[in-house]
């Protein structure tokens, strides 16, 4: 029916309209929007303040300094920020599947996972994104190369957040009520992405690269900023896109198992 190019163009226009609608929806409560985003910005800075106290006492931990942790926060919060602003449903896949809220998306002629992801905008994430950019401007390399690497780092970090949560969320297709488990994973994932992966040893290190793969955030995008080599950049990008593709395929597979439900649902 549509050629591949037309299809991509149509999906791009659809995604663009969804983002506009989401923003309009968020702006319905302007004060709440500004307060939530502002509070998140401040909240992140408080964490950095604690890290500064820590590094004041132990200036170097496993090769990491305060500067590196600040970069990690810039990448982690910034990556999470754009992902949650533009694809705000990624932490909620399990709940959407388990409560049968995919029906509306499935009845429309658009890719289901894309529709689900772009149908929500996290307001607080605007604060995370602004925080990430602000911290990078404070401590990062602001040359053109540095800025491009930061953008690539943000892209990889955001994709990792989306991919991991989509893969975890897909478990709801197969085991039913996976909301609690994925919520737990999400919380651990967010918390652990703000710790240097090098401080973990043995089983803990294995865990943060497997069960809760938060280690990838400090390994891939931060590795990219700390030692910018083309080979590593390609590998990091490949891993991020590969995981995203895996999430998308798993979701497709899961749709065959989708059981719907009778929850009364509204789009917000």
């Amino acid at each position, binding site marked *: 029916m549509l050629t591949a190019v037309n299809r991509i163009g149509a999906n791009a226009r*659809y995604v663009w309209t969804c983002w506009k609608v989401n923003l309009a929806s968020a702006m319905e409560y302007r004060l709440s929007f500004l307060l939530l985003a502002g509070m998140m910005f401040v909240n992140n800075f408080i964490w950095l303040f604690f890290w500064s106290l820590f590094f004041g006492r132990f200036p170097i931990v496993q090769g990491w300094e305060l500067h590196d942790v600040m970069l990690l926060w810039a990448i982690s919060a910034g990556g999470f920020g754009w992902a949650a602003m533009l694809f705000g449903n990624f932490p909620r896949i399990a709940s959407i599947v388990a409560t049968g809220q995919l029906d509306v998306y*499935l*009845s429309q002629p*658009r890719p289901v996972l894309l529709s689900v992801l772009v149908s929500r905008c996290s307001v607080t994430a605007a604060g995370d994104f602004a925080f990430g950019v602000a911290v990078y401007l404070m401590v990062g390399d602001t040359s053109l190369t540095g800025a491009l690497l930061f953008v690539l780092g943000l892209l990889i970090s955001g994709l990792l957040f989306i991919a991991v949560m989509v893969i975890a969320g897909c478990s709801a297709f197969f085991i039913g009520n996976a909301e609690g488990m994925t919520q737990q994973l999400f919380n651990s994932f967010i918390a652990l992405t703000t710790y240097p992966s090098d401080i973990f040893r043995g089983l803990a290190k294995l865990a943060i690269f497997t069960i809760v793969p938060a280690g990838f955030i400090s390994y891939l995008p931060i590795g990219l900023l700390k030692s910018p080599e083309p080979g590593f950049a390609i590998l990091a990008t490949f891993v991020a896109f590969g995981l995203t593709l895996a999430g998308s395929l798993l979701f497709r597979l899961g749709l065959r198992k*989708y059981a719907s439900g009778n929850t009364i649902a509204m789009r917000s």
Partner: protein
Amino acid sequence: MMALRTRGLGKTFRVKKKEAGLSGSFRSLWKPQWETKEAVRGIDLNVREGETVAFLGPNGAGKSTTIKMLTGILHPSFGEAEVLGFTPWKEREQLAYRIGTVFGQKSQLWYHLPPIDTFELIGRIYELKRDEYARRKDDLIERFELGPYLHTPVRKLSLGERMRCEIAASLLHRPKLLFMDEPTIGLDAVVKQRIRELIRERNREEGTTVFLTSHDAGDVETLCSRAVVIHHGGVLIDEPVEKMKREVLSRKNVTLKLAEDAELVDLPELEGVAWEREKREIRLAVDLKRTTIERVLGELIGRIGFTDVNVEDPPLEEIIKYIYGMRMEKEETGWAKR
């Protein structure tokens, strides 16, 4: 031409079985037990283009599951289906361009935004050309009388207003086939009637095939020409609505409006007639197996003065109740199942 065709379409779900209480929960945790529930049991259906079909049955009969399979939302466990020439679960996107869906309990409108914003998004979803979208939107706004609340956030609309917007949104892309799952649920009588008129109008003017589930007899009587009744996941009856009403239940409701000067006397004892009076109106339930309308009216003319008489079929709820009763009797007496 067929709009929809199914052969042996069915769906089973695996459901966890748990005994009551906390100990049951622990047992279930340690040794879970599963049972297979057959939600839809091999349904055969044919719906021609332009038909208006009511898909009826009690709660849990498999109506919504069937609609979800026909719209590509659910994958069936067995059987086949073709909707407008497409296999719904394999060619979901192509089919979605040609069908409309209204789920009474699942909204496609953005809760915090006015309906006009959702209309705009739907225009993009279905890739409507801008001028075509504008014309269609204006037409639906006028017909559905949406003007006064088009720019009001959905959360502030009444249920009736929201439902009108919901149906208008599902018609924006001119679907050939409209699936509706309980479209009038929770609405008052006036709004229900208006919504039925609007859907009937679309069917008449654009030839839209309508396939709806409802618990409301009025939806079926006003909108549909054919009724398919399912029970326990299988088709129980598939007949024109009029025929079903005429043949399945041999009863008529007769309403007499008494003249202003008529005496409020009691009615004579008539075989096969039960009656009740409310102010200056007498309602009779006439059993046509035991008597005829002609005989009953003949007996009454001259005895009481009335200015108007109305003979009606009984409401569909009663008919469906009767069909279920009949089925149970057949099962108990070992009659062949339909």
